[in-house]
């Protein structure tokens, strides 16, 4: 089943809901090792995203995600704004002109997004950031993309979850949590968590849930 423009819109709506219902949780995580705003930032970003795309006509997935990228960059701020903004921008460039894509292509586009995050933020796996979720998740997706779709997505989300929880014992080396040094260990990274939530929504939309 190809990933369609409609699925893209559904995925974003699901992300908006997921972020909204985890707003306090993400902020709580950010209280422990950051500045208590990640849930607020993400919620502002997705609320603005939904305002922008609802009612708007998008010819293709590229155009849809480019709008998301612009809103993220222009309304979220903080570290996550430019990072997610860049992510969606890179994804949109890969999907320019496409009103639907097969899973391998989607996986490639997402990988481009991750590359953008790494280029901008210079984080590696183990630095206790969203990269810890994205790297295992997207390498799993790439590896499984040719096989059974449901199984590919399930494994991807499982890898994302593992990546997310893998941040708990880590000492942060990037972002605000790094100022805490050893005291950042024992807390799950907020950005790694929001990334997991977003990938989970993408899975649901891609599998035709509405």
């Amino acid at each position, binding site marked *: 089943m190809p990933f369609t423009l409609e699925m893209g819109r559904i995925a974003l709506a699901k992300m908006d809901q997921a972020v909204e219902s985890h707003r306090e949780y993400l902020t709580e995580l950010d209280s422990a090792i950051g500045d208590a705003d990640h849930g607020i930032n993400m919620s502002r970003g997705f609320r603005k995203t939904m305002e922008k795309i609802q009612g708007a006509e998008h010819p293709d997935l590229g155009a849809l995600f480019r709008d998301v990228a612009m809103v993220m960059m222009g309304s979220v701020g903080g570290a996550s704004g430019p990072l997610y903004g860049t992510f969606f921008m890179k994804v949109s460039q890969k999907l320019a002109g496409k009103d639907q894509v097969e899973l391998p292509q989607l996986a490639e586009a997402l990988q481009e997004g991750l590359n953008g995050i790494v280029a901008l933020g210079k984080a590696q796996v183990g630095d206790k950031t969203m990269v810890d979720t994205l790297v295992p998740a997207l390498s799993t997706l790439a590896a499984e993309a040719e096989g059974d779709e449901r199984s590919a997505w399930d494994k991807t989300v499982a890898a994302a979850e593992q990546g997310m929880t893998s941040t708990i014992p880590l000492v942060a080396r990037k972002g605000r949590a790094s100022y805490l040094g050893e*005291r950042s260990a024992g807390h799950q990274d907020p950005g790694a968590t929001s990334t997991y939530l977003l990938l989970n929504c993408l899975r649901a939309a891609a599998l035709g849930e509405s």
Partner: protein
Amino acid sequence: MKKLINKVDDVVVESLAGMQAAHGDLVRLHPSVKGVLRADAPNPKVAVISGGGSGHEPLHGGFVGFGMLDAACPGEVFTSPTPDQMLEAAKAVQGGKGVLFIVKNYTGDVMNFQMAADMLAAEGIPVAQVVVNDDVAVQDSLYTAGRRGVGGTVLIEKIVGALAELGAPLEEVKQVCEKCNAQVRSMGMALTSCAVPAAGKPTFELGEDEFELGIGIHGEPGRQRLKMKTAREIVESMAEVIVNDLPFQKGDEVLAFVNGMGGTPLMELYLVYNDLVRFLNGKGIQVARNLVGNYITSLEMQGCSITLLKLDSQLKALWDYPVHTPALRWGK
């Protein structure tokens, strides 16, 4: 958490509107993005621009005016502003001599300002950036985000603003900015947490007999949680780390800056300053200039930070140069 606000989402804009209403002679708001612009901009000089999350007032908006900033870009509370803000503010105030961004070293600020700088450069406007990272509480390392920008930012904005006002070219303004940053060190502490309006509750909890040492300006927890001590002991433990870091040496002249985090009475800040001067005198370090008050705050947090800037005759002259902004004013 109780606050004098209306809607959580409107805190920043309503506060900016109030500041503009109070200081319309000095500042005006950008018509389309959140930006505090010098009322008489553009001027034929290097435009000095800073910005960052809100909640640190008077930083940065309160420092817009003659002899200091040309524009400030406030983000949401404790959240860095977005690139379009810096881009539009820069375009509105630049006078053909280029733009200097003074950026506090936080991942979000650095990335957003970098994007804005790229956009600005793409439009053919010369732009330079200096990242301020004066917080000795953070152990520096190549592999981390590095030290935070804290109290030193205030002093740097004043000094660099004076230099720009005097007509120095972008390259020199940037260079003095870097020199200041290389000579300034800070450390903060908190007795209580602050509460981000949108979060609705304190960022962290501290016991009745505890304080946080090495706190940031965003309610980030510090490096250590310690049992409460006297002001003198706290001042000494902070000043010791600061002095040893640069290091500041016997015979050095410094600007000593005792900053309140927003909720500490001025009475206590002067008491802290008293202990700081005693400590520095004991080390043979001479306090040639000072600043005591709430200048870079964390909402209603109780606590203080100490900043020392090593002075030379150039920096003293630039510090003394007239300044006329909502929060800092002399000589005019």
